[in-house]
């Protein structure tokens, strides 16, 4: 988790179970990591069911863009998710590449 912070623009990250429990996190002091885990799993789960409802297939990632940052959630195996918070101007291409690698590592660790 702490390695991801070295990637420019990533401010926080968390590995969470798909049912919303925290596995590990590197978050800022003001964020309650457990609440963040439950919220992001719910967000991703709702996106999955919505896409399934419109028969759009499995989701690759969820990206939410806010005024002060972006939140990206990506699958890390069948039971976990990797969620990162980035600065608003962070380079999305590089970040997606890095979190893709990290998510595969997490999936392997959890196997």
């Amino acid at each position, binding site marked *: *988790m*702490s390695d991801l912070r070295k990637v420019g623009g990533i401010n926080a990250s968390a590995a969470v179970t*798909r*049912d*919303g*429990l*925290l*596995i*590990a*996190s*590197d*978050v*800022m*002091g003001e*964020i*309650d*990591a*457990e609440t963040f*885990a*439950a*919220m992001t*799993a*719910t*967000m*991703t*789960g*709702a996106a*999955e*069911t919505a896409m*399934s409802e419109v028969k759009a297939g499995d989701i690759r990632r969820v990206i939410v863009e806010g005024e002060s940052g972006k939140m990206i959630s990506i699958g890390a195996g069948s039971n976990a998710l990797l969620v990162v918070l980035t600065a608003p101007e962070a380079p999305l291409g590089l970040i997606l590449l890095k979190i893709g690698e990290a998510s595969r590592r997490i999936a392997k660790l959890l196997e």
Partner: protein
Amino acid sequence: MLLTERIKLAIIREVFEKGVFDAKKLMEINREDGIFTISGLRSIIVGTLSFAILHEAAEKLAGKAGPAILRAQGEESGRIEAEEGWRKNLEKFNLSFNLHTVLSTLPVIYAAVGWGKITTEGIDMETGEGTIIIKNCFEADAILGMSGEKETPQCYFVTGYLKGLLEGITGGKFRVTEKKCKAAGDEYCKFEVRRVQRKGSLVTP
């Protein structure tokens, strides 16, 4: 613990265990206005199957994250109950609001209102860590009744409730995990309780 406090706790346990306390006595029905109250609080009676329906609805909307919604609901309920129920009632009897008083009376009180048979003997009364066992847990029975046996533990609301209650009493941070569940084929539901660090960076539970 003071002797008077010990005696009072023993009396509370006796009152509930011997059936002197009858939840029905606290209920009032105003048929004219269609209002039902328990201890003066506006209430409704819904079957425990409502919990199973909530499970299904949460899973329909949030998929695999459905349990997170139920745990959050339970956690908030537990926290409010600690403050509005336990603190106020213990203060009314001039008893300390702490883990020991709550955990030593909780089993008889919750059994009297249908939560199941709770055992808190596996819990360290000072730290709150250990195991809580619930036989005939209402949430597990509701799931079994509605959709049959599941592969994994199902008492998400109760898991969240215990966490919220313990956090509301102590101000600390807890992790509650359901290790065994009647809805998953076990004889009873078993919850493991651990303290975790409060907040901050790089948490590895």
